[in-house]
């Protein structure tokens, strides 16, 4: 599995797709972080460091989830479309190991991309005179990785059996619900009826990815952390990974 994972990662790095998506993310993050292009709310600029840091942290989580979908959507389907899978199957590699290695590469690629964005955020903190945050950003990064890994693994697992369009739609629903958990909690009671019931159901089964990101932020700020969310996030990762054992291709 390590061989498959490292090969997929190597290819991704050499293909430079990682750099392109990360550059987009870095630009977006820097855009938000620059004083001259501060976000305005009701005409007033949102300039305080803490607020900007929080906004950028939320943005990194959102961009990370988007990157997770982009980087993970076609990896496994491409292997089968190009029949690369033939030369792997004939060598007696089980589907679990094969798909697992590819999924791991997806997760790692996503984590690396988010790591680069996190470095940018750390740079922002240092420039703004809050270098003390940098040390805490290491464990906080690991928490954010749980969030984006969940999206990456979810997409990877579904892509084994479902067409890309369907996987993409479900990924958007999954990641969207996750990052907008708080907003949807607000909406569910105002919407009511079938809509409200659907939203409630989704909120029950999909983890609060924004909440996870918030725990990372709380860790950096020295505030209270909800350990339950972290445990549940890791458990959700484990549950999604079971899909690697369940979903199998009938033919190479």
């Amino acid at each position, binding site marked *: 599995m390590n*061989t*498959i994972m490292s*090969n997929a990662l*190597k*290819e991704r790095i*050499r*293909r430079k797709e990682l750099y392109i998506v990360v550059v987009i993310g870095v630009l977006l993050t820097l855009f938000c972080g620059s004083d001259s292009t501060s976000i305005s709310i009701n005409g007033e600029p949102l300039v305080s460091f803490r607020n900007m840091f929080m906004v950028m942290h939320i943005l990194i989580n959102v961009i990370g989830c988007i990157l997770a979908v982009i980087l993970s959507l076609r990896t496994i389907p491409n292997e089968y479309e*190009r*029949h*690369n*899978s*033939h*030369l*792997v*199957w*004939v*060598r007696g*590699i089980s589907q679990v190991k094969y798909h697992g290695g590819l999924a791991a590469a997806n997760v790692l690629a996503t984590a690396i991309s988010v790591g680069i964005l996190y470095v940018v955020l750390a740079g922002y903190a240092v420039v703004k005179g809050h270098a003390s945050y940098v040390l805490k950003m290491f464990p906080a990064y690991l928490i954010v990785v749980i969030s984006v890994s969940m999206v990456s693994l979810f997409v990877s697992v579904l892509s084994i059996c479902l067409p890309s369009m369907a996987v993409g739609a479900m990924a958007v629903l999954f990641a969207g619900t996750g990052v907008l958990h708080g907003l949807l909690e607000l909406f569910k009671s105002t919407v009511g009826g079938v809509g409200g019931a659907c939203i409630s159901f989704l909120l029950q089964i999909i983890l609060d990815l924004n909440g996870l990101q918030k725990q990372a932020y709380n860790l950096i700020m020295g505030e209270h952390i909800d350990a339950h969310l972290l445990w549940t996030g890791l458990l959700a990762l484990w549950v999604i990974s079971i899909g690697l054992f369940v979903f199998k291709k*009938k*033919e*190479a």
Partner: protein
Amino acid sequence: MVTISNLSKSYKGKKVVDDLSFTMKEGQLFALLGSNGAGKSTTIKMILNLVKKDEGEITIPENTAIGYSPETPYFPPFLTGMEVLSYYGALQNISKKERTETGKALLELVGLENDGTKIKFYSKGMLQRLALAQALLGDPDALILDEPCAGLDAMGRIEMLELIGNLKKMGKTILMNSHILNDMEKVCDEGLIMQNGKVLRRFQKEDFDNGTGLEEIFIKAVGGNRK
């Protein structure tokens, strides 16, 4: 060595392989001939368990290693030839040192340079050679070659056939599928001609050694007129 009995496969109700039986004898080259859509590739894929058979039995002796060279090989374009062999060698649990040594030797054997050229710059013929090289990793007992000469120029085909002949002499059991009947004539020991999933005719080397070419046998079997 490898025995196929009453093999059948259907896709959406249409039989693409119909009650196929043959035996690959040890140290011999068995040829699968037929027009496009005859069921040759599907047969190969069923033997390799890339596709599930509907009916029939495939008997392969235990611990028989099979190398496979696909018709249209795809390798990651950003790897070099050596890296491709190293990757597949690692999947076969070949040690790093052995992979390096074997990789160099195999590249040389199939006529490829170990110069760090990336796959994306490989010609079709080079890809075909690399496909054979990766099939030989781990020194398998049997080889399944799907159109190994496709895309090769005349010289390349001669070299490839010579190589296949040598592999046969080394005792490897080979199943080969090709459109180029003249090439098949030079290397195969026996074979069969398929059409619409069924066996039209079986042949032995002696059948076309006596002056009747394999092309004539094929045309007679398939029912076309020779121009």
